[in-house]
């Protein structure tokens, strides 16, 4: 397991995000699966390049945060940048049949049950 101690230096976080603390990227759920659509390019911010490498196969937002040792909210900002530039695509979770449903779709729950029983 990784060392739980983190670099919590606010200056580092400030630098990583170019000073932005809020994102309009709430669209990125903890378990949204991110896939890169391009290779890192020279001169690219290193966190962006790392994300593109990690997401060469689908990777959840929370896994990216863990790999980069950054808080989830910072990673959401970085993902927002890459998404706006068309460098990643996002596969968002689908749990309910319609947006109004409060409980998960029984069909999805059935899939989960089958998967768990086969473990």
């Amino acid at each position, binding site marked *: *397991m*990784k060392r*739980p101690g*983190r670099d*919590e230096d606010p200056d580092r976080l400030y630098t990583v995000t170019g000073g932005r*603390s809020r994102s309009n990227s709430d669209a990125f*759920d*903890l*378990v*949204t*699966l991110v896939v890169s659509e391009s290779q890192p390019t020279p001169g690219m911010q290193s966190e962006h390049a*790392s994300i593109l*490498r*990690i997401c*060469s*196969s*689908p*990777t*959840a937002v*929370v*896994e990216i*945060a*863990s*790999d*980069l040792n950054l*808080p*989830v*909210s910072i990673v959401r900002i970085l993902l927002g940048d890459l998404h706006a530039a068309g460098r990643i695509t996002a*596969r968002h*979770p*689908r*749990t309910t049949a319609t947006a109004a449903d*409060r*409980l*998960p*779709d*029984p069909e*999805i*729950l*059935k*899939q*989960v*049950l*089958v*998967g*768990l*029983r086969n*473990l």
Partner: protein
Amino acid sequence: MDSATSDLTGTRPPLHSTAANGLKIVIVGGFGVGKTTMVRSVSDIRPLNTEETMTRAGEGVDDTTNVESKTTTTIAFDFGRISLNDTTVLYLFGAPGQERFWFLWDRLFTGTLGAVVLVDTRRLVDSWYAIDRLEQHGMPFIVARNDFGGPHYSAEEVREALDLSEDVPLIECDARSRESSKEVLITLVNHLYRLSSSARENAP
């Protein structure tokens, strides 16, 4: 995987290229109750950890600087994952149920299928707060009691102590066992399935 990538991802196997739907289940409970152990027992990967921080405006104003004080809350949590099929991946989160955690619930755990409240019968009080909050959030849950070899209490006694409603499943488990932890998850998902299908039948 090239070495630059494995430096970042360790030995974690990549997901299937068709993986498209990530689902969440949260295991909450007091300190040392076995959350990480349960995640590890059923996960395809070694548990990873990460954190989220939140800055809130404080109650008062700092006397010396006359600036409104801010408090930063940091919550660490760990997680594992189970690939259920080529498209669906279940993520399991082990999260501390203490008060400050719940400030981040909406931001982190909106869309969670359901929760497992892991309890140690020697310290049932530790789980009261988590149960309250899950009820407030309308988040369906089950209670799993991990056997640490304390005095034996009947299910009725545990229900009473937790003021658990009849329709919340309560089961015994050993978080160190894969089979037992799997059974806990199946019990939760069966419970969710019942709730969800009866909500449909009763829908107008």
